[in-house]
């Protein structure tokens, strides 16, 4: 996990992948949950499709967010204002905010 945060601080999204069976492990873990072999952090496809979407008012201002499925890696991220369910999106940024929370930003991309 420490290495995952190391890359995330540099705005790089990496996921642990099993060295033996190539299973992607998300959230990151030191060992594969299928064959228990060691994993290593790798760059993965960061395009995916929006599964569901809504707007959060919890921080005062409206913020569109949704759950994005990137070839089986599901995570919740901020979306561009014109996003909709089923839209193909690309992760444009990721990192760690000052309050310690992780963020993932997505913009629409070509099919």
């Amino acid at each position, binding site marked *: 996990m420490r290495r995952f945060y190391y890359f995330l601080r540099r705005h790089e999204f990496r996921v642990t992948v099993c060295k033996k069976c190539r299973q992607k492990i998300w*959230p990151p873990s030191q060992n594969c949950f299928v064959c228990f072999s060691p994993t290593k952090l790798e760059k993965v496809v960061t395009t995916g499709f929006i599964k569901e979407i809504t707007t*959060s008012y919890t921080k005062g201002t409206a913020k569109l967010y949704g759950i994005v499925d990137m070839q089986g890696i*599901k995570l*919740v991220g*901020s979306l561009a204002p014109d996003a909709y*369910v089923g839209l193909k999106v690309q992760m444009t940024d990721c990192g760690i*905010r000052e309050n310690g*929370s992780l963020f993932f930003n997505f913009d629409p991309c070509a099919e």
Partner: protein
Amino acid sequence: MDLMPLRDMFLKECWTLSLYRVIRNSVYIHLKDFVRPEFRCPLFKSTPSRIQKVHLGICSQHSAVRGVAITAYATAKFRRKSELSLFEVACEPCRDILANEALRKQIDAVLFSSCSVEQYGSSIISEMLGLNPRISHRIDNMCNSGTNAIVSAFSYISSGLCDSVLVVGADKVGNPGQQLTWDITRGEYGLPVHWAAMFAKAHMRKYGTTEEQMATVSVKNHLNASNNPSALYTQPVTFEKVLKSDKVVPPLKILDCSSLCTGSSAILLSSGEKAKRIIENPVWIKGIGQQTNGASLSMVSDDLTSIDAAKKAASDAYEMASIDSESVDVVELHDAFTILEIIAYEDLQLTRRGEGGKFVTQCEISINPRGGLLGCGHPVGATGVAQVAEIAMQLSGKADARQVKGCKIGLIHNLAAAGTSATVLILGVDH
């Protein structure tokens, strides 16, 4: 339940039991000596092998499951804040139960359900209550910690390791342990309302569920809570007030959401034999279903209109109790958000898939008579215990102003962490 009838039946019919295991309502029997091979036990459909599985049904006269009953329960007033320490809060309902000296002497295990970061809680509570239990530990599984503790208590008693187990659930507002920080898949949207709102959007899109139907859930549960002196909210809310309440994450508004609060609840579970000596009509645990499908939001199903873990838990609980959903008279379900009650109607097979929204006004059984999480508040580790205490009270006919008339079978539905874990318990008065 007493094992003697099963043993006697087999001995009478020339079978010698050398080993048996009870899993749910099936008995796995290892037959050491098969004295009369030509004889077939009526329970077996085929010639017995060395290990046979016999489906008995928990209420069968031959059931080998040691019955577990709820013999006492108490819930303290849920409130926003308290000057008391977590452990003092936890002791509040226990004192009501332990005022009975006979009950106090019987307790041989104390299980503490909490998501607090404070350590060694079960032993601290035991000391504060003057108990010296043989077994004492804490159980934490986020929002369904309470029912997890009750399932553990059931296991201790049904296995014969304990005869009486005190389950205590307690939490205080503001405890950092109530937030699942491990789940980084939620990104900066870590509050539970964020995943719940996406479930609501999905259900609205797929089945046409409306904000008005969700508001009706809130109105109903706040009204029910007005008859519950232990509830956080004791004033009803109007339909208009819910719809006009501040939006949090649309379609969910502030009155679609339960509130974290400070509270505690306790239950005493006893073996069947002891229970019958303590009270005339004990409330029995008849069915248990529990399922965990991971911990992170990434593990929930693609279809956000249902909760897979709850469906499996419900199916298992009905099977163990040998009943179907039509037998249920009263339900306490996990309405942390109004949409979760609507989804639960479907997951618990109370209505057909997609009809949960309409079921809010068509439902003929009592759902969340204590006010649910929306009306009572949600002291995380205490919630599951308080739900079970309510159903036990209803089935005992002691719920006063909110008593559901003639109820005999009750169901508890308790979720954790975006529905990645779910517990369903079925209680009944006849054993």
